[in-house]
């Protein structure tokens, strides 16, 4: 299990840095798809709630360190997302396209809805957080488009590591 958490968290943090450093420069207005979040939901779906929530917490903390968010803000959101999608592990297989796209859409809405609620509950300056704007729609579109590819990537990554090491749990 520790291996799965490490792989998911490392992949999430690497893609978090890639989307903040590289993608933000090549995509207009710097609105980038949240690949780290899609990696998190794909891994949570594959490995369950425990791996999802712990990986989500680690990825979230790294996002908090990268931006203006108070420490714990993204950690809380991504922990919840990891747990929620981890619950899907035993119920249904994600398949190649439809369910990954749907999952990315729901996760994006949870992220923005959650950020609204967190800012409301903790009295954060709501103007500092971008939610429910045209840029949100752009991010949603990017997440939906990339979801099948990222799910495929996570499956490949899992196969690569588990195949070579006989599993990293």
């Amino acid at each position: 299990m520790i291996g799965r958490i490490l792989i998911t968290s490392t992949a999430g943090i690497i893609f978090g840095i890639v989307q903040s450093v590289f993608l933000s420069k090549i995509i207009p207005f710097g609105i980038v798809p949240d690949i780290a979040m899609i990696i998190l939901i794909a891994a949570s779906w594959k490995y369950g709630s425990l791996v999802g929530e712990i990986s989500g917490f680690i990825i979230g903390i790294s996002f908090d360190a990268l931006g203006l968010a108070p420490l714990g803000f993204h950690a809380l959101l991504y922990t919840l997302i990891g747990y929620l999608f981890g619950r899907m592990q035993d119920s249904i297989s994600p398949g190649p396209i439809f369910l990954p796209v749907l999952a990315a859409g729901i996760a994006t809405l949870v992220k923005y809805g959650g950020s609204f609620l967190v800012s409301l509950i903790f009295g954060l300056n709501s103007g500092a957080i971008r939610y429910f704007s045209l840029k949100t729609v752009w991010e949603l579109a990017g997440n939906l488009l990339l979801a099948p590819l990222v799910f495929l990537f996570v499956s490949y990554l899992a196969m690569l590591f588990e195949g070579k090491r006989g599993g990293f749990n």
Partner: protein
Amino acid sequence: MRERSDGGVRPEAVLAILLIISILLIIFSGPLHGKAGKEWGSRFVLGIQKVTGTATENIKDGFGSLRRLREIRIQYESALAKLGDYQGLERDLVELRRENFELKQQLGYSAGMDYIHIPSRIIARDPSNLFSSITIDKGSTDGLRVGAVVTSFQDGFFGLLGKVITVARHSAQIRPVVDPDHYVASRLQKSRYEGLVEGRGNEGGELIMSYVRKSAGPDIRINDLVVTSGMQSIYPSGIVIGRIKEIRSRDYSTSLELILEPIIDVTRAEYVFILGGDG
């Protein structure tokens, strides 16, 4: 059914613990003012971001060099043709410079505008799209300190972009002027009325200038420039902040509200100048 390997740990229990930790962190790191609590983490991750950002820029520079070389050659030929025309203008320019210098001295601005500045490059933005932070490739080793003023040059204007909020050894984080937690003492460049500019954090990246006397209304026009006043502020005077887009006057209020369009579009900025560094 897939194999579960959670070692008998209940995910709900771990979830509760992680949520409590997150909530405590939010409470103790303070609303959007990440202070000491997050600095150790920021410095570490900013370091990784710096390495990635520098590598990305080097690759980008490599590919861009050939294209730029071709462009420079075309520009050189064009510049050569125009050189003759500009030689005639040189004499006028010298005279204008002298006049400008004298006027600045009279207004007491010349000292205020002689800033020590550190040029820097934007290497990263907020990874989750939820906040407006920017990371640059200069840090404490380059003389940067928390609170330093960040400016940029865009479309012929040298304007305010934000201030430094976290400094690592080789990188730093900036809070842009469009952020709602950013306040700047300001004045209208033409009519000299004072006010306080803050970000609105909205889609258009607008700013709002409050506490402008209502009697100033007739002297204020759309597109008038707003600059830093330098009054009891970390910001030196005379840096352009934005342009008036809308003037709002409410019956119940004793002051005007001016909606400004920032002179520097944060989403387009690539290079910045940090004023007042140690260097």
